[in-house]
């Protein structure tokens, strides 16, 4: 044993191995392990690499995995540093103590958005990052450095065109903003070179943007002079004239993809916190509630309860302490629109929560976010820190005497947390199980105090309403549903994206105009709105309008705005099985009919989907669905049978094909 030579790092690693061995066996095992290690090294000096290779290759399970964990080998190696973006934390300068400060910061923000030099933005919400926005940004930074160009490379959010990610926009003083799509790291140097020279890389150019809206009031930042564009420019489509943007009505998501989510100045530059200044400066809390009531804004989470009525009830409820809670749980399996939105414009939510707090008299708020949305959590956290730093959160906001604190609370992403009482339980640290109501959360919510729980899209809409008035908002949409709705298109679509459209837009139009039909080019067979709880509707219903009541009547719901498209080859019964399985996983298990009912429903639906269905089973599903909708505690159980029931109603042929064939 004397001839074993150790390198210091080898010795260190081996010590870790020994420490992972149970204490009682340590003394006995040590010589044996050294012997094995010496055999592996074969006379060489023992280094870290040899020890790791020995653990990885020679040891039997389960010792291998235990030691792998002890040495940290089970985690994937950290990414090479070269690809990481050099992201210096943005430092906010100055404070906002009154309206004059806000105007000053607005000017500073506009300076950042349309600088005299060059601004290059990379859309890096989750959809962009998944397609390599980070490497593109790093390559752009590299190119800027090498070519000695004075440019600001900024990470912004997503503008909804998920299919064209990663997108790069180039903003040069006096020129229109050019948006490039599907950019790779190799193209970065070319883009920087062309940008510096004021030229365009024509192959990649998606569109040009001549001006951006500052806020809903109509103010604009102009990028280019009004004269006729140069020859190269004329080939690039005008962004405001292509269908994708022309058919949208951007109110909530108006800043998404333009501003950097981690720079509060840019949000303020586009008219941010003006609604707050207006409310605190010239409106009483009751006036804010009046505007929201007048706007007929309904909850965007699924149930569609009027937000103004909720706020009024909470403001009238007796209590020394009140809370505002933002429901950002979004546990639906196929959509991530709130995630994309938060990653792009977190300050819009903060402003909405401040307005809600002012309206109902609350001084504390919680943003409950799905923990799977790592980036969104990070960006909201940064946004809150910045708002605190400049004084837009905390005590005596804008010198009005109104105080408000905001915290991010990360949840496990349970679907049932969409139910506001379950969310409150989770927020208090208890089981995510719904509470009986009454008492309603507006009377006894978080910690037994009056609480407004609103979806994050609802809260984000408020600033526009306060700024431009409830009447203006009520003028958009259908009689029952006002305003706009963010819709995420997924499933079998040619171009997955998320868009904001006015309520009352026909669903078929949304699919063709924005998503470009199905990816396979075949006809749409079915679609589903509102996440798993919504029904699966046939193509004949594509003329339905985006409206709470119209969708409700059709047996589906608007929900949180998911739109899942299925083409002719899709096995809808199998989709119903997937969704029933989802409910089986997501049922909280509190009430008997949901816990046991979904379990049995899943057995039956799996049986049918496997092609072993019987008539008796179909009848049973029907009675179960009816009884569950009556008996279950919350909406999760009440709607758990909706997917299979709507499939049975609208696609009898598919279901019949799944019946057990017997030989008579």
């Amino acid at each position, binding site marked *: 044993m004397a001839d074993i030579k150790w390198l210091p790092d080898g010795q260190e690693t081996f010590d870790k191995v020994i420490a992972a061995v149970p204490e009682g066996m340590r003394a006995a095992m040590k010589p044996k392990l050294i012997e094995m290690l010496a055999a592996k090294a074969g006379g060489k000096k023992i280094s870290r690499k040899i020890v790791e290779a020995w653990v990885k290759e020679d040891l039997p399970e389960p010792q291998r995995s235990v030691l792998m964990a002890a040495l940290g080998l089970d985690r994937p190696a950290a990414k090479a540093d070269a690809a990481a973006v050099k992201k210096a934390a943005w430092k906010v300068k100055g404070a906002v103590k009154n309206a004059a400060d806000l105007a000053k910061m607005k000017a500073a923000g506009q300076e950042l958005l349309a600088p005299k030099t060059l601004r290059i933005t990379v859309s890096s919400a989750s959809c962009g990052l998944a397609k390599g926005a980070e490497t593109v940004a790093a390559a752009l930074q590299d190119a800027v450095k090498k070519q000695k160009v004075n440019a600001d490379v900024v990470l912004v959010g997503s503008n909804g065109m998920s299919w064209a990610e990663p997108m790069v926009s180039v903003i040069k003083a006096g020129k229109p903003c050019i948006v490039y799509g599907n950019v790779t790291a190799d193209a970065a140097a070319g883009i920087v070179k062309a940008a510096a020279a004021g030229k365009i890389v024509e192959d990649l150019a998606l569109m040009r943007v001549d001006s951006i809206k500052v806020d809903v009031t109509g103010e604009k930042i102009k990028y280019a002079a009004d004269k006729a564009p140069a020859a190269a420019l004329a080939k690039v489509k005008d962004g405001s004239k292509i269908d994708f943007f022309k058919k949208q009505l951007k109110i909530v998501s108006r800043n998404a993809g333009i501003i950097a989510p981690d720079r509060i100045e840019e949000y303020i530059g586009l008219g941010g916190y003006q609604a707050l200044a207006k409310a605190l400066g010239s409106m009483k809390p009751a006036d804010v509630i009046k505007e929201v009531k007048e706007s007929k804004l309904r909850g965007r989470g699924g149930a569609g309860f009027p937000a103004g009525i909720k706020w009024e009830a909470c403001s009238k409820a007796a209590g020394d302490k009140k809370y505002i809670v933002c429901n950002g749980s979004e546990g639906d399996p196929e959509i991530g629109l709130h995630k994309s939105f938060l990653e792009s414009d977190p300050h819009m939510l903060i402003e909405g929560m401040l307005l809600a707090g002012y309206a109902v008299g609350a001084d504390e708020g919680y943003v409950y976010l799905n923990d799977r949305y790592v980036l969104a959590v990070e960006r909201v956290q940064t946004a809150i820190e910045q708002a605190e730093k400049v004084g837009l959160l905390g005590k005596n906001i804008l010198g009005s005497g109104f105080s408000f604190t905001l915290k991010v609370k990360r949840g496990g992403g349970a679907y049932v947390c969409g139910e506001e009482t379950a969310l409150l339980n989770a927020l208090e640290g208890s089981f995510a199980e719904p509470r009986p109501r009454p008492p309603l959360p507006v009377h006894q919510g978080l910690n037994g105090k009056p609480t407004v729980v609103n979806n994050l899209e609802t809260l984000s809409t408020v600033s526009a309403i306060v700024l431009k008035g409830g009447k203006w908002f009520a003028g958009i949409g259908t009689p029952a549903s006002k305003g706009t709705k963010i819709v995420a298109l997924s499933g079998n679509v040619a171009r997955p994206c998320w868009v904001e459209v006015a309520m009352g837009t026909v669903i078929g139009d949304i699919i063709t105009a924005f998503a470009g039909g199905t990816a396979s080019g075949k006809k749409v067979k079915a679609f589903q709105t509102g996440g798993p709880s919504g029904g699966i509707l046939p193509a004949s219903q594509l003329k339905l309008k985006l409206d709470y009541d119209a969708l409700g009547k059709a047996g589906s719901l608007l929900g949180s705005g998911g739109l899942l498209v299925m083409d002719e080859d899709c096995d809808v019964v199998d989709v119903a099985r997937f969704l029933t399985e989802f409910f089986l996983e997501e049922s909280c298990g509190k*009430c008997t009919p949901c816990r046991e009912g979904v379990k*049995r429903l899943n057995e039956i639906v799996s049986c049918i989907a496997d092609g072993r269905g019987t008539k008796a089973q179909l009848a049973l599903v029907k009675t179960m669905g009816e009884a569950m909708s009556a008996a279950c*505690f919350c909406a999760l159980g009440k709607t758990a049978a909706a997917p299979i029931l709507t499939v049975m109603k609208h696609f009898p042929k598919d279901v019949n094909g799944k019946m057990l064939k017997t030989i008579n």
Partner: protein
Amino acid sequence: MLKLKINGKNIKAKEGMSVLEAARANGIDIPTLCSNDALKPYGACRMCIVEIEQGSRTTIEASCTYPAAEGMAVKTDSPRVIAGRKLVVELLMARCPNVKAVQDLAREYGIADSSVDWGKDNEYCILCGLCVRACNEVVGANAIQFAGRGAGKVVDSPFHQSAEDCVACGSCAYVCPTGIIKKNDLAASATCSPEGAKQEGPKREILNWQVEYALKICTKCGNPFAPVQHLDKLSKQFNALPQFFNLCPSCREYIVIDRDKCLGCGSCMENCPVGALELDDKGGYDKHAQVFEQNCMACHTCQIYCPVGAIS
């Protein structure tokens, strides 16, 4: 007083009553599985659902959690309600076919067996949560809790280990409608090891929570009566004298005050841990202590403090 209608019958209910309480106070039966008067309503078993008509809205609600309100019309046996209840019973029959409480309900609702299209389990726990809530709300021990969620939900001790905070009071076993919580009082026990069996005194075990505690033996009658841990918790809770729990409830001697000796000085009242003594003041020298036996714990603290030995 609130006026409402249940099954067409005009009834009156007190403010703050639930629909279930209002119905039961008026002799209308609504079946329940997870309800207990000592516990907060939970609304999980969904057996007590009723149809409530309020204004223009008709909804199905759990009567145990829904507050009674002026002018509401309640139906306890509408077709939708019965369909919902039948589903609950049928589902419970599939889960727990061998539990008597479930079998009784199934008979009442005319369900011979659960559907053939379902799988069958042989669980015993119906997850009504009575044990968990009794432990947390009434006993205050917080020894057991639900674990898992959805179909995998169970009642368990923390991390499926021996429940450290359990005092083996047996409340969980008492409230359990299925009898699956196994609480055994052993007159004598022995721990076996290679060195031989070691005889130990009487013990109480609750198998579900993996606890086993020695029982205290009454110093007077010599019978075991309650787990030591439980008595320790109680004596802390009531701030009682250490010797208080030496006697079993049947051997406990309640105090008697000799009115001829009592001066009415009040020192016994000041020191009573539960406030069972009060001054019977008729003016002048006619002042005596009097005891309320329903409150007295027979701890005899007052006996120590009485300066004239009037308490025995």
